[in-house]
């Protein structure tokens, strides 16, 4: 399952990582496992492995599933531990090797920039001439925000991937918007039959990239969302793994949903995104 763009082809996990970091990649792995019926999430946010064959399609999924097969874990815990797992680090190295992200900056300096800025400001309050202190404080703060904040910044190629990313199905919707995000005013988590209280357990992270809903999202995003929102459980929502075009994506996902089971296409809809 990949998302094709003119700049590059990335998997939903890679796209999630590029859009919002390792936590988002972890959410994508979770979404894929839900999609495959390999895990279920309870009303209280307890994630558990379904006793069924399958190990996940990616190292991240395998890592998450193996962990859950040992014991169920709360949603926030499993997404966090997976985000900091060796599998996610491998994903980051892979993106680095593909030059979609740059080498890490010294993120640890970021809080120091703020501390220096605040100290300068405070010292300036007692000085005869406050203005130079104020200017230095502002300059250090801006410097910190601009240059020291992110550990792994996007390269030009990475930015192009993110810019062209489209929520082609509910899994890539997670990659682009996150489980807490919205697509066409519908919460992404609702596509998986999850409740607001459950995804409320996830740490809040600013969405750095909003994909225009008229580019590439198309009918698939809408129909996948609306059709699957009728499912009351994530575990009952499955997806076909076959590839589809943007047009077939729409029709298949809307027609295959019933009260008892709900399907959405989570396959790649490369024709959709490449038409951007």
């Amino acid at each position: 399952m990949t998302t094709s763009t003119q700049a590059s082809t990335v998997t939903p996990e890679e796209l999630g990582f590029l859009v919002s970091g390792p936590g988002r990649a972890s959410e994508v792995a979770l979404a894929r496992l839900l999609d495959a019926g390999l895990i279920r999430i309870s009303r209280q946010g307890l994630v558990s492995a379904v006793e069924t064959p399958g190990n996940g399609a990616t190292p991240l999924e395998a890592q998450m599933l193996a962990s859950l097969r040992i014991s169920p874990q709360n949603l926030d815990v499993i997404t966090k531990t997976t985000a900091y797992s060796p599998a996610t680090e491998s994903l980051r190295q892979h993106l680095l090797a593909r030059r979609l992200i740059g080498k890490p900056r010294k993120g640890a300096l970021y809080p120091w920039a703020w501390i220096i800025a605040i100290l300068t400001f405070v010292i300036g309050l007692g000085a005869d001439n406050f203005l130079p202190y104020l200017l230095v404080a502002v300059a250090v703060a801006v410097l910190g925000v601009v240059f020291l904040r992110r550990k792994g910044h996007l390269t030009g190629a990475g930015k192009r991937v993110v810019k062209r990313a489209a929520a082609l199905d509910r899994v890539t919707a997670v990659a682009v918007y996150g489980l807490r995000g919205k697509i066409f005013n519908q919460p992404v988590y609702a596509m998986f039959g999850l409740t607001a209280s459950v995804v409320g357990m996830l740490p809040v992270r600013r969405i750095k990239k909003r994909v225009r809903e008229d580019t590439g999202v198309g009918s698939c995003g809408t129909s996948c969302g609306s059709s699957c929102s009728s499912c009351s459980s994530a575990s009952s929502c499955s997806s076909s793994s076959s590839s589809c075009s943007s047009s077939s994506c729409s029709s298949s996902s809307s027609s295959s949903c019933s009260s008892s089971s709900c399907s959405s296409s989570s396959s790649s809809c490369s024709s959709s995104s490449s038409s951007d």
Partner: protein
Amino acid sequence: MSELPRLGVGIGWRSEIDITVERLPGVDFVEVVAENIHIGHIPESVVLLRERGVPVLPHGVSLSLGGADEVDAQRVKHLAEVAEALDAPLVSDHVCFVRAGGLDSGHLMPVPRTRDALDVLVANVKAAQQDLPVPLALENVAALLEWPDGELSEGQFLAELVERTDCYLLVDVANLYANARNLGTDPERFLDEIPLERLAYVHVAGGVEHGEVYHDTHAHAVLPEVLGLLDELCSRVAPPGVLLERDDNYPSDTEIATELAAIREVVEKHR
């Protein structure tokens, strides 16, 4: 002697599969482990089921009614409070002991089937019943050993327990199967000896064989042999309810629904 409601076919509610249980077709009632329910913090899913009119039966695992110690009044009180909070028509626990001398076994230990042990059990059951707002049903357990010098068969033991305490029976056919496999007991004799008119409901569960021993895990698929025992029971009496117990390694929603359907098929075969 109060009449129990017809319960139908149900499933053990567990927090991991709460949404699954809510959505499963044909769930007429559920059972919750009473010790996992906290008054004032009833799980949202359980509340939802109650709002739908689904009976929720508290199932205790810690009263230790077969123990030599007096019944823990706090545990009975909790079971009573859960029953009232859920508006349950009855509660249940096991014919077993789980602690002695201040130590908890972590298992449902079988009671020696002697007259002395029965006297202790009867006294404890009566004490518990005094503080319970609804009828009490007691379940036969799976055992890997039998105490020596037993004076009564398991069926006789339970029949006398019912006669002396007016309790109901919760028959676990998976436990019957496990005991038949591991101890060589006769399930049909058991069914012959117990007062089936006092049957509250039935448990069905899965297990797995390791070497020479059958483990009543409640974490594996229900064996056809266990369904066969349910069939045998249903040929003698129409049970008010039959419940699928699954405590771990939960399969897909589809597999759970299939197991429930298989249970319902056996039950309806005799109607």
